[in-house]
């Protein structure tokens, strides 16, 4: 059974890895072509450095074994358990080997920083972003993760906080940092002009669409792998709830935005799908198909309202990361107390405690890191650089050197 389980877990690891391509496509698609290299650079930096940091400290911060519930550390590097003969100890877990465990969780870790990358696109300095990523992925994400998945205090509540695959632990952790970063950075030049909200259309909608479909596929691994074995009933249910929530989220966001704005906006349709996916993530193994559709549908409606609201309070989030990952992450987490097998007052309170705990650590940690970086080095590129594009200034190249219709 371990062999089957482990194969499934490695497939899921590959699918979660593939999500990084989805994020990269989505982010460059919804921004302008002059900043494409910069976004790709950040995303490649996140997945590479993220994995190395997870190997160095992250894995053992997130899964420290017995600890005080808030902060524990099992030592640097990877230390695979050995059996008497010196071979890898397969008794580690029934669902996966030590190596699979590390790599699967490592793929998750980088996702949190990728969420921030999209929100700060087109105006944040690369250096400070990289420093932020190192601290956030290397320390904040795994410490916060240990509170629940590492067996920490949120797992020890009388009614344990529940987050199946990371509506809060991954998506809100990224979303809170995105919110703080967008607030400290300020909006892109031209986003709020003459007291009015201006549209800054993305430059490659086909890529954004490919990105969303790739993310949906990747989510089969993100949620399906969070079963932590190849349990036939749970993995198949999880894939069904995941897909139904994605579909419902997309359709509702499409309908609401079409009714509200009299326009078939594909980007809202796409964000709605992602909202549904983030929403179902906290309880994907606890929901019936009907629950999943309702959770996805509400997430889809939330997306349209949240995108408008974030614009209204003058925060500039080019790809809708705050609406998708933070708002729908919170919604999905709370939904575990409202729908499905675990629904109930006590569970809802635990979910609220979880959301509040993560808000506290993520807001304070990201504010501290970014505020210091802002004071010491500055986190925003110069006006010239922003207008001419980060690609030519930070990287000295263009994403499409032989194909440039718009200089800026």
């Amino acid at each position: 059974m371990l062999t089957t389980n482990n194969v499934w877990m490695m497939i899921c690891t590959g699918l979660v890895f593939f999500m990084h391509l989805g994020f990269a496509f989505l982010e460059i698609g919804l921004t302008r072509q002059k900043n494409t290299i910069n976004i790709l650079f950040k995303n490649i930096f996140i997945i590479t450095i993220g994995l190395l940091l997870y190997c160095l400290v992250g894995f053992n911060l997130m899964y420290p074994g017995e600890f005080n519930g808030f902060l524990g550390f099992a030592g640097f590097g990877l230390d695979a358990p050995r059996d008497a003969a010196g071979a890898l100890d397969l008794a580690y877990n029934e669902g996966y080997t030590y190596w699979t465990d590390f790599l699967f969780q490592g793929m998750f870790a980088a996702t949190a920083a990728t969420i921030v990358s999209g929100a700060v696109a087109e105006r944040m300095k690369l250096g400070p972003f990289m420093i932020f990523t190192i601290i956030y992925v290397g320390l904040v994400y795994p410490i916060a993760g240990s509170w629940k998945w590492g067996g920490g205090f949120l797992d020890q509540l009388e009614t344990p906080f529940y987050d199946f695959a990371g509506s809060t632990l991954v998506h809100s952790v990224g979303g809170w940092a995105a919110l703080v970063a967008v607030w400290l950075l300020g909006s892109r030049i031209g986003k709020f002009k003459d007291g009015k909200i201006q549209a800054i259309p993305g430059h490659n909608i086909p890529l954004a669409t490919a990105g969303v479909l790739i993310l949906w596929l990747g989510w089969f691994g993100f949620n399906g792998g969070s079963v932590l074995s190849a349990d036939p009933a749970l993995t198949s249910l999880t894939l069904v709830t995941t897909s139904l929530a994605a579909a419902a989220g997309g359709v509702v966001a499409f309908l609401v935005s079409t009714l509200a704005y009299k326009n078939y906006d594909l980007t809202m349709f796409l964000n709605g799908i992602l909202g549904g996916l983030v929403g179902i993530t906290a309880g994907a193994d606890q929901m019936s198909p009907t629950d999943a559709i309702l959770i996805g549908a509400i997430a889809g409606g939330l997306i349209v309202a949240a995108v408008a609201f974030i614009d209204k309070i003058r925060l500039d989030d080019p790809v809708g990361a705050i609406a998708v990952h933070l708002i729908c992450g919170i919604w999905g987490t709370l939904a575990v107390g409202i729908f499905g097998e675990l629904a109930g007052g006590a569970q809802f309170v635990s979910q609220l405690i979880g959301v509040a705990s993560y808000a506290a650590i993520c807001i304070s940690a990201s504010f501290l890191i970014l505020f210091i970086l802002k004071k010491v080095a500055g986190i925003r590129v110069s006006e010239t650089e922003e207008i001419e594009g980060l690609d030519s200034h930070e990287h000295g190249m263009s994403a499409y050197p032989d194909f440039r219709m718009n200089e800026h």
Partner: protein
Amino acid sequence: MKKVEAIIRKSRFSEVKKALHDVGVNFFSYWDVTGLGNEKKGSVYRGVSYSTSDIQRRYLSIVINNEFEEATINAILQAGKTGEVGDGKIFVSEITECYRIRTGEKGSQTLK
């Protein structure tokens, strides 16, 4: 020699090209241009409505001998017309000299 420049709708380009070929005008240059004008287009992106006055058109530059002037202009006037506002403009100007780079020859035979 004359230069006939025309700004036309992209959607009329293939008809204009055929009409020019029909009157014996077989070589010219063209490129896509963006201009400003009276036409305003409303769009909505992620819940924010905006209007753009940018207009996409195709720009033709045709250098011909004098006897082709009338036929060329008529071809564009007829093939480029839809009757709606925004069909475009034609500009005619004098060309003082023309050289063929390969041979160095000059004058009206270079346009044949």
